[in-house]
């Protein structure tokens, strides 16, 4: 890569004369320069709307209504945050999202691990059938489950409860979790299991004492990737939750849209920032693990 770059000297019109300096500091070729500019421009496109969101949450209402969206806020205010918490049930929404996210993650990790253990470590005759069944859940869109689940929930009285959200969220995330865990279990050497077996450990003991403790990294990856989707889930919550007390963040945010389009935008954006921040922080801290998980997950699919 680095060897071909200086082949063509950059033909610059009015710049300073091109003097060869130390080889490592040579000015980049036009192609390389163009690609850097492009990458930079794309960073702006990906990040600027979010920066704007944060800036808007700090603006005064007057500044927002009349101002140029590209300008920096004329004065910073935290009023919007006060109104965001005062107006809706933001605290309640955050709590609900936490409960749903944790509940679903526990199911995803436990069931995913157990399934992968049965498929990959124990093995059985119809394991290919079970794998194929799990593949169905990756390809099939979630919309197909909405009407039947709504009907079933009404029948058994689960409509408008935490489990009504947790069950489908965990169910549809399970296949990916099973695949991630089984691809990790592949790397645990057989000798480890054989040695444990010789020492008289049965399948349950081996699961609890060997497989489980070794999988901590994979657990982090699985939880991270799924938390993003669960924390942000809109469609299941919107379909199965009716009462104000159970609304998760995505539903709660909609409350900020006032009647007849009169919306308190700066407070809305403040609420958005509050709800995005925890996820963003965890993401920035753990994004290595997550990016790894995404790459692995995709190359498995």
């Amino acid at each position: 890569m680095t060897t071909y770059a200086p082949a063509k000297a950059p033909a610059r019109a009015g710049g300073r004369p091109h003097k060869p300096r130390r080889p490592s500091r040579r000015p980049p070729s036009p192609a390389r320069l163009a690609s850097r500019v492009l990458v930079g421009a794309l960073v702006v496109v990906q990040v600027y709307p979010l920066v704007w969101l944060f800036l808007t949450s700090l603006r005064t209402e007057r500044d927002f209504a009349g101002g140029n969206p590209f300008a920096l806020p004329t004065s910073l205010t935290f009023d919007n945050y006060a109104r965001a918490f005062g107006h809706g049930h933001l605290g309640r929404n955050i709590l609900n999202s936490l409960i749903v996210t944790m509940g679903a993650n526990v199911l995803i990790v436990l069931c995913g691990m157990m399934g992968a253990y049965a498929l990959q470590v124990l093995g059985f005759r119809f394991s290919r059938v079970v794998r194929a069944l799990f593949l169905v859940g990756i390809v099939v869109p979630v919309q197909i489950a909405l009407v039947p689940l709504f009907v079933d929930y009404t029948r058994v009285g689960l409509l408008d409860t935490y489990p009504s959200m947790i069950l489908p969220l965990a169910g549809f995330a399970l296949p990916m979790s099973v695949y991630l865990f089984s691809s990790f279990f592949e790397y645990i050497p057989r000798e480890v299991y054989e040695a444990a077996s010789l020492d008289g450990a049965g399948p349950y003991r081996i699961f609890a004492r060997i497989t489980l403790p070794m999988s901590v990294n994979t657990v982090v990856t699985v939880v991270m990737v799924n938390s993003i989707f669960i924390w942000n889930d809109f469609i299941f919550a919107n379909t199965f939750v009716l009462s104000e007390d159970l609304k998760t963040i995505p539903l709660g945010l909609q409350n900020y849209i006032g009647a007849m389009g009169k919306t308190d935008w700066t407070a809305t954006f403040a609420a958005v920032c509050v709800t995005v921040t925890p996820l963003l922080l965890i993401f920035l801290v753990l994004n290595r693990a997550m990016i790894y998980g995404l790459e692995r997950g995709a190359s498995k699919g």
Partner: protein
Amino acid sequence: MLPHRSRLAVLVFLTPPLLLYGVAVLLPIVQSLVLSFFSWDGLSDMEFVGLANYTRMLTGDAVFWRAFGNALGYLAICLVLQVGGALVVASLLASLRRGREVIKTLYLLPAVISTVAIAFLFQRIYSIDPAGLLNQALAAVGLGGWQRPWLSDVHTVLAAVSAPEGWRFVGLYTIIIYAALLAVPRELEEAARLDGASSWQVFAHIRFPYIRPVFATTTIMAATYALRGFDIPYLLTNGGPGQSSELITTYMYKTAFTSTDYGYASTISVFIVVECLVAVGLILLVLRRKAHR
């Protein structure tokens, strides 16, 4: 595999995941298939109507076909932005020397944000009164004539609801393709360059064939996600104005939960599944055939 495994242990480990999966995923799929042959509003008795729902959908429902056309447009825009964009950006990233990790993280940021927040954001970006980010940017570069209410103009609304979905996941696919690009053996590229191959030739004849399997997976992921895309169009325009941004998913949702026509909604959701399966099949066919040429 464990030397001392027992049938009981397999059952113990397999039952919880299969139970969860069966109740939340498999059973509803079967129920949807069954419901699609019935007419039911949720209150009165279910009535078996055979294939009537299917004939209604395929031959008698103009809105459905409109929504199907829109869904294809939405799919096309998302695929170009996500897979095409990811390929370009990943190639650019691979040519950078520093800052790759930071840039990867920054590109992935939008994927962390909820669709409701993104819908709010883009509602402001597209707005004309007061002029939002997009309209102001157009004015700033001298294209003020292009300013318009992007979400209420029937000609632009479909693109306007598709772009946020594309934007949201570009980073995700970029990272996947970038990881694949890193695995391309350097010696191959260097050798080709020594033989005088241009950057484009290196890409077309060495890099791309090498990453084709990952590219296929990525395309399948992007296509199935785009075909089930729902949140952003539903939140931004709810299919409007008229039916100009109605997708099959939003149409199905409204049929089920606004018109409470459970039977017909199930028929449409079966169609969404078939659509996804066909898309996966087509992508595999195209990319495999090219590989064996």
